[in-house]
């Protein structure tokens, strides 16, 4: 198969794996998957990679032959362990190691779908093929390969957006959410507020974030808990005044997004919601306060699935790298 076919299929597999197995990736992972999707052809001097490697490729070909050791499960395990670990260490992202395995594995799977098959169980000489019937397999360089790469490209384009939000995120988005507008009447904690909607006050727990405890009766005040609580109070409970300076509203007007999938309340009877705020007074509530808490380093992320989990994870990683908020103030605290 051609280099382009392997790269497209490798990326398609990475996006699909990310969507299904719930790991998020960044640019280094995409590059690692692309590189490793052509790496097994190092044993073939006539391939693109073989030309680049020169005598190394010729030596590999002489020692093992094409589609033998380099196309085996053994090589997959070795490369993933060695190169994957190295990239993980260099980038600090575990997703790069997964990408190495996925990219390399995608090459083996793609070659298994060609007429020749691969010696997947090397040093055993049996040739693994998929599917079993010769007429259903791809002819390298033929029309069937063009069809194959076109399908892989379409699937990659379909999987890409799903991989960015995660399969969880997709399901929660498809499930939709209810919207409520209300005024914040009290800030209990960094991640818990009370909102008055339709004449009724409701306790609200912000989804996907976890600020250090400040009010739990049986727990000490957590590191950076007071700061988180103060920040939430500053943003959500700030007094709103009109042009003449008269107090219009004590708390801030917010939009609550309550997902339809999953529980709408937690064990303490608090409504689980995303809190959207209007930052530039244009009447559009498009700033997600939950994410803001993570970006500023006031909160950690929770582990359960929800609509914006991927976005929150990315924001947390960035905050952690910057050493924002609690990540520099109290990094030794174990994540619950």
């Amino acid at each position: 198969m051609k280099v382009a076919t392997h790269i497209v299929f490798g990326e398609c597999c990475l996006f699909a794996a990310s969507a299904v197995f719930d790991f998020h990736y960044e640019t280094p992972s995409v590059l690692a998957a692309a590189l490793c999707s052509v790496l097994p052809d190092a044993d073939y001097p006539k391939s693109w990679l073989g030309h680049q490697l020169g005598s190394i490729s010729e030596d590999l070909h002489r020692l093992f032959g094409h589609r033998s050791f380099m196309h085996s499960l053994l090589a997959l395990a070795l490369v993933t362990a060695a190169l994957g670990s190295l990239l993980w260490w260099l980038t600090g992202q575990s997703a790069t190691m997964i990408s190495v395995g996925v990219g390399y594995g995608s090459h083996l799977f793609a070659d298994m779908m060609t007429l020749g098959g691969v010696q997947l169980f090397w040093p055993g000489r049996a040739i693994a093929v998929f599917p079993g019937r010769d007429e259903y397999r791809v002819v390298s360089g033929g029309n069937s390969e063009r069809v194959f790469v076109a399908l892989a490209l379409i699937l990659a384009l379909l999987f890409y957006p799903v991989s960015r939000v995660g399969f969880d995120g997709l399901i929660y988005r498809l499930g939709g959410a209810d919207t409520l507008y209300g005024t914040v009447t009290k800030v209990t904690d960094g991640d818990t507020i009370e909102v008055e909607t339709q004449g009724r006050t409701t306790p609200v727990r912000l989804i996907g974030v976890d600020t250090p405890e400040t009010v739990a009766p049986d727990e000490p005040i957590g590191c950076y808990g007071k700061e988180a609580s103060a920040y939430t109070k500053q943003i959500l409970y700030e007094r709103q005044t009109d042009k003449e300076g008269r107090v219009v509203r004590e708390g801030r007007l917010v939009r609550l997004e309550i997902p339809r999938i999953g529980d709408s309340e937690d064990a303490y009877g608090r409504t689980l919601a995303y809190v959207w705020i209007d930052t530039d007074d244009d009447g559009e509530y498009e700033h997600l306060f939950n994410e803001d808490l993570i970006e500023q380093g006031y909160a950690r992320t929770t582990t359960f699935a929800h609509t914006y989990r991927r976005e929150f994870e990315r924001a947390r990683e960035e905050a952690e790298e910057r050493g924002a908020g609690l990540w520099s103030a109290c990094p030794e605290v174990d994540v619950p």
Partner: protein
Amino acid sequence: MDFDTSKNGGRREHRHRSGEIPGFSTATRTDSSKARALEDGDFRIPAGSRKAALVHLALEAWRKGLLDPKELGEVRGRIVDEAGLQRALYRSSIGEIEHVLGPIVKGRRIVVEGRLAGTGRTALQRLGAGVEELRLEDERRYVDMTPAIFVVAAVAMAVRYVSLGLDDQSLYILAGMAFALMYGLRPFFFKMQRPRDG
């Protein structure tokens, strides 16, 4: 770049009606040291399914004058040529062919030109014959990975129940979609499987 995947590997062009064949080695599955030249009392049949093996064995016995076609019910007492006998054999039940062949092949060596399916081998061995397979010395052995799909389908089905236990809705939906896809494409997956050699 690709290997030659023709399952016969050109073996039909090299086939001779008797004696050793260049490129073939005669060996049982278990002991290749038992290879020896074809003898007069031996039978030589092409590879195939259990029924095909028995039919070819019966035809071979008929050619050697060891089988009376009239013993087969489907022949109905007529005089038949090779084609007629072959038709009658295919119409006959496996049990009837085995009954007719039993006394003829007992204690004899049967050389199969290629790989004999497990049921065919068992059938011939039950009749008291020794079975040997002729294999190309550089024959490539293929492993069909299509059944792995059925393993994935089974895992998807199991994950649905696991997700119920974990109360994970998205996992339940994902596993359900995967299983539905696998189940829907099941006939196609069966068709994708590599046919048995012979």
